[in-house]
């Protein structure tokens, strides 16, 4: 019985670990440049990362929708991105501003 419980708990823990981000990457950093179809940030690890912006990319400012094109260099963002078919990081959501409690 103990072994079964252990097996179930282990499986759940493994599944939870697999679920981390559900395949999405989180990029935390400061906006460097923004164009109509790309956003480059300097991450908190001082790396430059560029993500593709699409019409499907959601902008969320303090949990309210906003137009990603309103972003200015230097602003703090958290980007949820996934690799697209061509291997480029595509932004699903760009968070900006304090998150409400």
């Amino acid at each position: 019985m103990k072994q079964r419980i252990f097996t179930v708990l282990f499986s759940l823990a493994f599944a939870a670990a697999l679920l981390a981000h559900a395949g999405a990457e989180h990029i935390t950093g400061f906006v460097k440049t923004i164009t109509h179809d790309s956003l480059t940030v300097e991450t908190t690890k001082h790396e430059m990362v560029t993500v593709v912006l699409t019409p499907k990319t959601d902008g969320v400012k303090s949990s309210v929708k906003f137009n990603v094109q309103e972003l200015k260099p230097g602003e703090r963002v958290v980007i949820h991105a996934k690799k697209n078919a061509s291997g480029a990081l595509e932004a699903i959501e760009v968070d900006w501003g304090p998150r409400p409690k």
Partner: protein
Amino acid sequence: MRPLFIAVALSLAVIAGGLFIVTKMGFSSRSSPGAMESSIARELRLWSIPGKYKSMSNPVVCSDAILTEAQAHWADHCATCHANNGSGDSMLGRTMYPPPPDMRQPATQSQSDGEIYYTINNGVRLTGMPAFGEPGDRDMDSWKLVCFIRHLPRLSPDEERRMQKLNPKTPDEIEEERQEEEFLNGGAINQPRTN
């Protein structure tokens, strides 16, 4: 005697051919079922649902409060495989065999309330779908999920965003969210270099 010999030889050849393909290519859950396999499996599964469920209507009135409750339930228990929007496009869903169906589509939405309930309550053998809730046809949580499944084709991005907050998270993800929140709130972690 000769026809029997030919039939046995042909059967053995088919089995040998099948074994050869399996040993060379293997069985991977990364591949997708073919159209014929999907169609046969779907029909067999629908036939396997007892007749009384086919005409059963949802005893739950799908009010806003019920939908909110069912959304939270779905986000916590079902989205792992089915995704919050029911598309099946989740990390586990994408690599399951058979993959979870896109429940917004007619193949699911055209089923009766009772058929959908039966699937939730009894699972589907030889798939990743387990049986949920109390056995029988009065498990109210499962009926509430039927309300939510009916709502899936009209799920809004805001609803989906609210559900993301209710998805199961690992301790690492919780810590990462805390750090992201601190960063967005202006926390002084790793400011950019000044050139």
